[in-house]
């Protein structure tokens, strides 16, 4: 009962300075919402990348020349095929195309022989020359759909027309937004690739335990190559979206610094009015511990409200509004940028981290200056 009375007094005290406290709650909520949005977004992207890329090629072998990725001779594939433990070798052809009409980059890729009916594709994959399948982003920016024509300028500066036979569903935009799938010979002609070269080679391995051993053998037999394993692909995405990534550092740290300034402002002093109030309370017989309890409950009321409102805002922002406000920050100069339709994977550990990063510092920064005022002489405190 005693604590409820103290809480009642603390709330009355907050309401007396309602505009100031409301402003603090708004800024605090915004800071928590920013921190939580980044954490929710990066965690969901990391989980989705982990799940979706689990069927990526076990090994991708690139050729390097002068430190740059170069086209790889098809005969390298034959050398790799002879390594014991290698199940399948698939030379891949793909490249980038800059579309000057809309200033966007597409990823052009050949249709692989293993391609069957894809669940995320409306229509079908190209089967004949002059056909293509496109991602939802390409369809949107070029304002085309099934059976329309996609015109692109090839490496000889000649315009080529492809009939759209398939459009990837918007739900798959995270993977296929900028893709243009062409028939193999079309892609070779488009980029004027030499017939005996491929962009890279995908390698399947019979026993997953042997992937690293086979990668070492490839590197030994073909020293100008670079094998990239599936685990390295997955590790890349774990690194891209982890705590130390640039996305976290640029937005997360900015929000954290804003919060520190808020807490610092609270901690470095209390207003003359608050000092007078503490002095009066001491003069009428309140114990220092009672005053500290009042300030503790004031801090808890503000920080808990802001924390919960911030988490609610962040959840709605990321999972209902597709992280609309973060998109301009993350987008950079990408013209084709997928709409995030993320599965709401939440890590309880991150919620705890946000709570510990925000609530205790604020409560401490509310209590400490009040403690300083509470241990001074009531008369001096009342005089401010």
């Amino acid at each position, binding site marked *: 009962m005693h604590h409820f009375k103290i809480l009642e007094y603390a709330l009355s005290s907050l309401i007396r300075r309602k505009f100031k406290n409301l402003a603090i709650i708004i800024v605090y909520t915004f800071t928590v919402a920013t921190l939580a949005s980044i954490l929710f977004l990066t965690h969901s992207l990391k989980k989705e990348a982990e799940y979706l890329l689990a069927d990526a090629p076990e090994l991708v072998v690139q050729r390097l020349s002068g430190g740059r990725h170069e086209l790889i001779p098809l005969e390298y594939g034959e050398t790799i095929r002879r390594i014991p433990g290698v199940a399948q070798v698939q030379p891949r052809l793909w490249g980038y195309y800059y579309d000057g009409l809309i200033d966007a980059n597409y990823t052009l890729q050949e249709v692989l022989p293993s391609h069957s009916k894809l669940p995320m594709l409306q229509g079908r994959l190209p089967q004949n020359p002059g056909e293509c399948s496109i991602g939802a982003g390409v369809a949107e920016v070029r304002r085309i759909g099934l059976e329309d024509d996609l015109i692109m300028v090839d490496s000889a500066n000649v315009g080529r027309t492809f009939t759209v036979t398939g459009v990837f569903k918007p739900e798959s935009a995270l993977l296929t937004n900028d893709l243009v799938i062409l028939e193999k010979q079309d892609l070779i002609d488009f980029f004027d690739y030499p017939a005996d070269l491929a962009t890279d080679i995908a390698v399947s391995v019979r026993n997953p335990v042997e992937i690293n051993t086979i990668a070492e053998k490839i590197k030994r037999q073909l020293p100008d190559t670079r094998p990239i394993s599936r685990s390295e692909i997955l590790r890349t995405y774990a690194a891209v979206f982890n705590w130390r990534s640039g996305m976290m550092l640029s937005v997360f740290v900015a929000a954290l610094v804003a919060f520190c300034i808020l807490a610092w402002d609270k901690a470095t002093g209390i207003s003359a009015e608050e000092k007078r109030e503490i002095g009066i309370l001491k003069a009428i017989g309140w114990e220092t511990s009672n005053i500290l309890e009042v300030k503790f409950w004031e801090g808890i009321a503000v920080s808990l409200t802001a924390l919960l409102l911030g988490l609610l805002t962040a959840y709605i922002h990321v999972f209902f509004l597709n992280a609309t406000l973060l998109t301009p920050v993350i987008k950079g*100069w990408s013209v084709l940028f997928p709409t995030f339709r993320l599965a709401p994977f939440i890590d309880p550990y991150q919620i705890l981290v946000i709570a510990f990063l925000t609530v205790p510092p604020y409560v401490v920064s509310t209590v400490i200056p009040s403690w300083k005022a509470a241990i001074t002489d009531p008369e001096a405190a009342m005089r401010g």
Partner: protein
Amino acid sequence: MLKHRVFIALTALEMLVLSLLFFFGQIRADHLLATELPQLRTTAGALQLTDLAIWTEARYTRHPSQADRFTPFQDFPSALEHFPAGSIIAPSSFGRSNQ
């Protein structure tokens, strides 16, 4: 003695709404894991995709897993990184493990 009751009720309501959002979010995530995400994974596997199509502004941001950490600086020695997404994403782990 009304204010603390209102505060406790409001806080409890916020916690309840948040718990419900997390709970239904988990159900939705499980549903997506059972329905849509396997289809996406099949698509990624069939097309042999190695990266998410998030940043399409440069080669090394479109396919971070296929690029070196020094790719942005390959144009000429000590070239400056000039794509915004390049400063948003972290360097590929590949560079550290295999180079």
